[in-house]
C-alpha cells in the first residue's frame, strides 16, 4: 500500500469547501458527500491502473473520514478545536482507555459545582451494584438513581443548547476575524465539552447500574 502523506492532507473543512464554521447544513453536507463519492469511490476505478485505484482508495477514505467527523456535532466541534491547537485529552476516548488500562479513575477534572452531587451519585451506584451482586433489588436507591438519571439527562440537553449558542458565537467571531473573542469562545467550548463528557459518563454509569 502506498504511504499516505497525512501532513499534506487538507483539513476536513477545506475538503468539503467549507469555512471553519460550526453551524452547518446537514443536507448540504450530505449532498456534497454524495457528489464527491460519485467521483472518488474506488468502484469508479476498479477497471483503472493500480496507481489510480490506490489514489481513489486514499481519497475516498479521507472523504469518508471527513464526512463522519463533520456530520456528528460533537466530533465536529472537537475536530475544530483540535485544528485550533486544543488537545481534547480530558474528553478523549484515548484518555478513558488509558485510565481504564491503568486501573485508575480517568483523571477528568470534575466541574466543581457537580462535585458534591457526583460524589453522592457514586455512593448510590456502588450500593446498587452491591445489591445487584447479591441478586437483590434496592428500590429506594433505584428511585434515587432514576431521579439522578433524569437530572443529568436534562443537563445534557441543556449543555447541547449552550453548545449551539457557542457555535453561533464562534461563527460570528470567525466571520468578523475577532481573534480575542474567538479564543474566549474556544475556551468556553472546551469547558463545556468537558462538562458534557463528565455528565455523559455519569448517565452511562447510571444506565449500566439500572439495567
Amino acid at each position, binding site marked *: 500500500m502506498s504511504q*499516505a502523506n497525512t501532513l499534506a492532507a487538507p483539513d476536513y473543512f477545506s475538503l468539503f469547501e467549507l469555512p471553519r464554521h460550526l453551524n452547518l447544513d446537514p443536507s448540504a453536507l450530505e449532498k456534497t458527500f*454524495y457528489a464527491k463519492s460519485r467521483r472518488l469511490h474506488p468502484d469508479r476505478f*476498479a477497471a483503472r491502473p493500480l496507481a489510480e485505484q490506490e489514489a481513489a482508495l486514499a481519497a475516498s*477514505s479521507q472523504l*469518508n473520514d471527513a464526512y*463522519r467527523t463533520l456530520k456528528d456535532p460533537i466530533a465536529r466541534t472537537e475536530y475544530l478545536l483540535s485544528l485550533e491547537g486544543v488537545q481534547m485529552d480530558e474528553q478523549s476516548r484515548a484518555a478513558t482507555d488509558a485510565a481504564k488500562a491503568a486501573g485508575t479513575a480517568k483523571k477528568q477534572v470534575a466541574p466543581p459545582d457537580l462535585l458534591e452531587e457526583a460524589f453522592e451519585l457514586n455512593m448510590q451506584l456502588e450500593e446498587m451494584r452491591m445489591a445487584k451482586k447479591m441478586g437483590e433489588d434496592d428500590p429506594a436507591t433505584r428511585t434515587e438513581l432514576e431521579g439522578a438519571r433524569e437530572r443529568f439527562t436534562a443537563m445534557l440537553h441543556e449543555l447541547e443548547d449552550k453548545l449551539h449558542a457557542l457555535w453561533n458565537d464562534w461563527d460570528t467571531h470567525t466571520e468578523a476575524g475577532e481573534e480575542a473573542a474567538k479564543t474566549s469562545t474556544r475556551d468556553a467550548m472546551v469547558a463545556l465539552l468537558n462538562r458534557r463528557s463528565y455528565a455523559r459518563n455519569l448517565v452511562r454509569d447510571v444506565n449500566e447500574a439500572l439495567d
Partner: protein
Amino acid sequence: MAENTQHRVVGIDLGTTNSLVAIMQGGVPVVIPGEDGSPIVPSVVAFDQETHAGFAVGNAAREVLLTAPGNAVYSVKRLMGRDLADVEPELKLFPFKLADGLQPGEVLKLNIGGLTLTPPEVSAYVLLQLKKNAERFLGGPVTKAVITVPAYFNDAQRQATKDAGRIAGLDVLRLVNEPTAAALAYGLDKNADGSAREGIIAVYDFGGGTFDISILKLHEGIFEVISTGGDTHLGGDDIDNLLLAVAIDDIRGDLGVDITQDPAAMQALRKVVIEAKIELSAADSARLAVELQGGRLYAREITRAQFEGLIASVIERTAAPVRQALKDADLSPEQIDEVVMVGGSTRVPAVRTLVSQLFGLEARGKKLHTELNPDEVVALGAAVQAQILSGTEHAVTNDLLLLDVTPLSLGIEALGGVVAKIIQRNSTIPASATEHFTTGVDGQTTVAIHVLQGERELAKDCRSLARFDLKGIPPMVAGLPRIEVKFLIDANGILHVSAREQRSGQQAQVEVKPTYGLTDEQVETMILDSFDNAESDIEARLVIEARNEANTILEATRKARQQPVWQQLTADEHDAINAALTSVEASLKSEDHKVIRNTIAQLDQHTRRLAELMMDSAVSGALGGKKMATADEGLGGEIGAPTTAPHAFAPAQISESEDSSPADVLQAAENDPETPAESTED
C-alpha cells in the same frame, strides 16, 4: 453495446448451502445455469477417487455425501477465516473432519477423502465450478468476479473468501455484502416510471448459515448503508440441526440405536429433515421417514405448529440484531419504507411473520418484498455490481453507487488488555484512522501492536485480526520516537496497515501477520489452474499426501524393529513385515497414489499385532495405533448439541420391517419420491 469479453465480470454468491453465478445481459442481471440446467450449485465438494475427475462439486458431490460421507464436505463457509477454538461448537453439529495435529492459531485444515485442504481451498473448488459454468455459458474465459459475503463477516472471513477467489484463478474485483447486493437486485432506487426513488430500506437476509440485517438509505442511485448487524453462525443449518436432534433422540430412545455413529445414515436423515423443512413452508404437516440399518424404519409426523414451536428460539435470535441495527441507524421501525427478504430461510412462514411484526408492516399496510427468488437475488445483485466495476458504460448502472460500512469496530489492544477503538462499526468504507505509538524503554527498536475487531471492551473477547511488530525504529530515549500507524479498511472491508517513524522520517517495517489466515505465499502455492487441470492437481496432491503417510509409517516401523517387542513376533511375521516395508519403500517412486496406499495398507495389516503388542507393553509407539484409534472418530461426531430437543411431539413410529408393512409407515411420505426410505422396496 459491444460485450467485450475483456470486460466481462461475473457476480458470484458463494453461499453456505448453495452458490450461484450471474451476469448482466442487456441491462438485466441473469443467473447462469450449469450443465444440468439449474443455476444453483450446492456448496458441496467431494474428493472421491471413484468419481472420474477425482473430485465433484454440487449435486454430484451431494450424492457422494450419501454414499461416502467422509469424502465430501458441505457448509464449509462456516469455517472460513476461523480458528480451532471458534469452530469447536460447529464440530458437534457438522461432520467436519479436521486434520490431525492442528495448532491453535493455525489455519484450519480438513481431511476429505484422503486430502488435506484449508476452507478457502474447498471453497475454491465451488468457485471453479461456477467459473466453468460461466465460461460455458458465455463462450469465453472468465477471470474477473465480484463475490458476495455476509455483511457481518469480519476481516479474517473476508480475507479467506478473497483467497478462495484467487486460488480459483479469479481476480476478485470486490467483495460485496450480501444484503447490499440484494438491495441492488431489487432496483428499489427507481419508481415504476423510472424516476429516482428516495427512502429507507431494510434487508433481512437469513440464509443457510448466516444472518444479516442491513439498513440502507436510497438517494438518486446511491445505496448508502447506514447500519448493519447479524450473526455469521445463524441460518437454516440451525433449523435442520434442531429437527435432526429430535430424530436422533427418537431413534436413540425408542430403538436404542445411536445413529450419530453411522455417517451415511446421518446424511440420509439430514436430507430427509431438510425436505420436511421445505415442505412445511407450504404444507400443514410433513413426514420424516428414513430406513435404518437392518431394515428398520423410523418415521414421524411433524405439524407446522410443532415445527414453529421447535424453531421459535432460532428465528427469534434474528430479532436482536434487527433492533440493534435500527438503534445504530437512529431509526424507529416505522421509519423503514421497504423490507427486502433474502435467503432460503425467509421462505419459512414464521420468519416472514416475525419480520412483518418487527417492522410493524401490517399496521402500515405494507408488505415484505419477496418477489425475487430469495436464492437468486444476491447473485443477481452481484452481477449488477460486477457491471458497475467493469468500467463499461451502461445507462442502467452509470448512476449506481454502493456506499457500504464496516460491520465491526476496529481497535488496538492497550495496556491491561483493554481495546481502544479506532474505527467505529457502521463507518462508511473505505475508512481510515491514524494512531501514534512510542517506545517504553531506552533504545527500543520494535513495538508490538495487536489489532482486533469487535464491540467488546477486552481484547480477549474480540476477534484478533493481526499482531505485528513495528521494526527498525532508530534507537532513541524512551518515549521520543513517534511512530505513525495508519489503519485503512478498504472497500472490501479488509484492513491494511502502514507505519512510519516520524522523528527520523524512517519507514518502519511492518509485517502484518494475520492471526488467522493464509499468507500471500501460501495462497500462491494453492492456485488451481482450471477446472480441467484440477484433476491432475488433485492427483499430484494425493500422491504427495500418500508419500508423506508412507514415510511416517516407514519410520514408525523401522523404529519398532528396534523395540524389545519385535522379538515377540515369529520369524514369519518378521518376514512379512520386512517384505511389506520394502514394497512401501519401492512404491514411493510411483506416481499413482493408489499404489502407495495399497502398500501402506498391507504394511498396516502386517504390523497390526506388532502395534497391539507395543500398546500392551505400554510402549507409546507411534505405530499404527493412533491411526486405528482415531479412524472412526470425527465423522458424524456428536450430532445434536441441543441434546434436549423440545419434545412436544407425538411419539415417533418405529417399525421392524419383519412385522409391519413398510408401505404403511411410508405411505405419507409418498408425495416425496426421493425419500431414501423408498429403498426398502429393494
